[in-house]
């Protein structure tokens, strides 16, 4: 087993290892609880290491194509059949970029969970579902097959729904999970219907092969509307955001951080459909404006809804909606300019800003949700009016929260600043109003987090609270994300040119995506 072998098979291994480990976890759970915890962490670390190796290879070299069940993507079995039907995994810059986010957030959530769910029952099943969430995310990000995308979307949705309801004895947790389940299964059925429409016309399921022959007929437009609506709903864009605060609030904190990454996997699917599947055949001006409008609405409505919230996690969930708006705005501007002469000058910068914001958001929003979980762990309430003075006893959590809050508000030198600046600069060229709204939202975000910081951490110590810091494993989980925030904030130039640029390039260059599967079908 050498490095080349590992790299060649890494796309399949990254899905297979967590999937098999997920179903081994309950077995090990029967034997020994400590062994199970160690097993889950080791699997998450292995996934992270393989992902980093694969991502490095993709960023410095070319996209990885992995064909299931044949030596190349175009082989037909039996040999006289006309159409190759099989699953192809396709890891290009964008897929590898998203995979890095998913594995990193899962690793942090895994460490954090060790202490967070220690007193709960059914931990074996908790970790099984956590690993299945990772499988769902990685599958969505790697697959080159549109039906496979649907299957992994459902794997992800079902695992997430069950985990949101994990602390079912709160009652409202089940309510949030039911909402999430209804929204995601309706969304997934819309995706399946769109897949049926595309298959009925072209007899193809492979995205690259479809992209080659797609014609933007009326049926294709209907399919595009269904796909955009479904994935925008799954990533929590206004006006389809109503499930986000409900389910983010009630899920256990590490799962909320995972849900942020899961929403971004849906965002990735949305971008993949627009750029790689339809590409220049679609009316980029109209669709670009629709996505920009979704982004602006999400930013503004999200942040204004966040201001009056008293529940710390509900407040952060509305901020998650608002931050999704920045990504939609950045990449929407890129889509709007795709194929126009200005694309190279600032369209690319806008896409880099939007894509960079995805990883920044996963890091700082994940961190903020984890600190909210740490507060809940100690104080046993999410109500901001009932807490105060936590800075006296929870020093690490306070520092982590400050870093996360400054990063989300776009204060230099943290990572949120770098991506927001890219978005402001490039959106300004399309219309100054876009940048003005984006900056305004950033200021309101800062105001809102100042409020949270003041009411949770400042003031005299609470009398009836458990004193002391949260357990070590929770601090490790938060530290993993904090290190990412600081590194990305200090070296944004290196990150943009080595990680974000290949990802944006992979999305923008549709011909490269089609060509990479050797001509498709």
């Amino acid at each position: 087993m050498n490095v080349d072998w590992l790299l060649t098979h890494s796309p399949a291994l990254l899905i297979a290892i967590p999937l098999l480990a997920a179903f081994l976890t309950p077995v090990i759970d029967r034997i020994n609880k400590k062994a199970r915890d160690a097993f889950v962490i080791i699997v998450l670390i292995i996934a992270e290491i393989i992902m980093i190796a694969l991502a490095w290879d993709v960023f410095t070299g070319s996209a990885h194509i992995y064909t299931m069940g044949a030596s190349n993507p175009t082989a037909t079995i039996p040999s006289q059949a006309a159409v190759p039907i099989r699953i192809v995994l396709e890891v290009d810059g964008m897929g590898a970029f998203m995979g890095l986010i998913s594995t990193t957030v899962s690793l942090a959530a895994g460490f954090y969970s060790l202490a967070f769910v220690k007193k709960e029952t059914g931990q074996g099943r908790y970790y099984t579902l956590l690993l299945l969430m990772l499988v769902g995310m990685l599958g969505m990000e790697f697959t080159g097959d549109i039906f496979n995308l649907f299957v992994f979307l459902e794997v992800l949705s079902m695992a997430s729904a069950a985990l949101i309801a994990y602390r079912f004895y709160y009652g409202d947790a089940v309510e949030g999970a039911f909402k999430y389940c209804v929204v995601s299964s309706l969304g997934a059925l819309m995706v399946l219907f769109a897949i049926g429409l595309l298959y009925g016309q072209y007899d193809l399921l492979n995205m690259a092969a479809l992209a080659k022959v797609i014609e933007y007929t009326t049926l294709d437009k209907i399919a595009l509307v269904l796909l955009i609506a479904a994935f925008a709903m799954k990533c929590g864009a206004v006006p389809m955001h109503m499930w986000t605060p409900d389910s983010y609030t009630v899920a256990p904190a590490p799962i909320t951080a995972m849900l942020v990454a899961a929403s971004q996997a849906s965002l990735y699917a949305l971008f993949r459909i627009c750029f790689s599947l339809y590409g220049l055949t679609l009316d980029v001006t109209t669709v670009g404006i629709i996505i920009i409008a979704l982004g602006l609405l999400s930013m503004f409505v999200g942040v204004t809804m966040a201001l009056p919230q008293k529940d710390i996690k509900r407040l952060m969930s509305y901020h998650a909606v608002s931050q999704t708006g920045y990504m939609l705005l950045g990449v929407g501007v890129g889509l709007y300019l795709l194929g126009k002469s200005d694309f190279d000058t600032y369209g690319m910068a806008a896409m880099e800003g939007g894509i960079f914001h995805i990883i920044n958001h996963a890091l700082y929003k994940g961190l903020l949700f984890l600190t909210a979980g740490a507060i809940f762990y100690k104080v046993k309430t999410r109500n901001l009016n009932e807490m105060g003075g936590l800075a006296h006893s929870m020093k690490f959590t306070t520092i982590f929260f400050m870093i996360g809050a400054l990063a989300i508000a776009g204060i230099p030198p943290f990572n949120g600043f770098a991506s927001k600046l890219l978005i402001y600069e490039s959106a300004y060229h399309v219309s100054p109003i876009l940048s003005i709204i984006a900056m305004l939202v950033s200021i309101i975000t800062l105001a809102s987090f100042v409020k949270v910081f003041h009411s949770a951490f400042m003031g005299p110590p609470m009398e009836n609270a458990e004193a002391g810091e949260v357990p070590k494993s929770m601090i490790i989980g938060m530290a993993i994300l904090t290190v990412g925030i600081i590194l990305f904030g200090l070296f944004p130039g290196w990150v943009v040119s080595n990680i974000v640029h290949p990802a944006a390039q992979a999305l923008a260059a549709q011909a490269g995506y089609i060509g990479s599967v050797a001509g498709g079908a």
Partner: protein
Amino acid sequence: MIYNIPFFAVIILIAVGMYAVIFRRNLIKIAIGITIVESAVNLFLITLGYREGGVAPIYTNLPANVVIPGGMVLPVPQALTLTSIVIGVAVLALMLSFVIRIYQYYGTLDSKKVRRLKE
């Protein structure tokens, strides 16, 4: 015309299911609505896959004078439908178990009363 009837059925079923999900207040009826939409999508896939006069692609059991591979049906839509049915069962089971838990904690299935989160 006769071959288009299933497509009209698909549209009607999706409309009925969406109506149940959006306007019905009983949580079990919402679950039923999702199942109806799912059946409609499955019907759509199966209808797409129907080819008049085609035979199943079982090589060992082919009738005489069937052209290979032109006379056989590529069974992809059927495979998609099977996958979708399996996923649908899991979704329905999960949703109904949520409904059971919600009934235990709230004592009602009315979605207007199950809203502790909004308070």
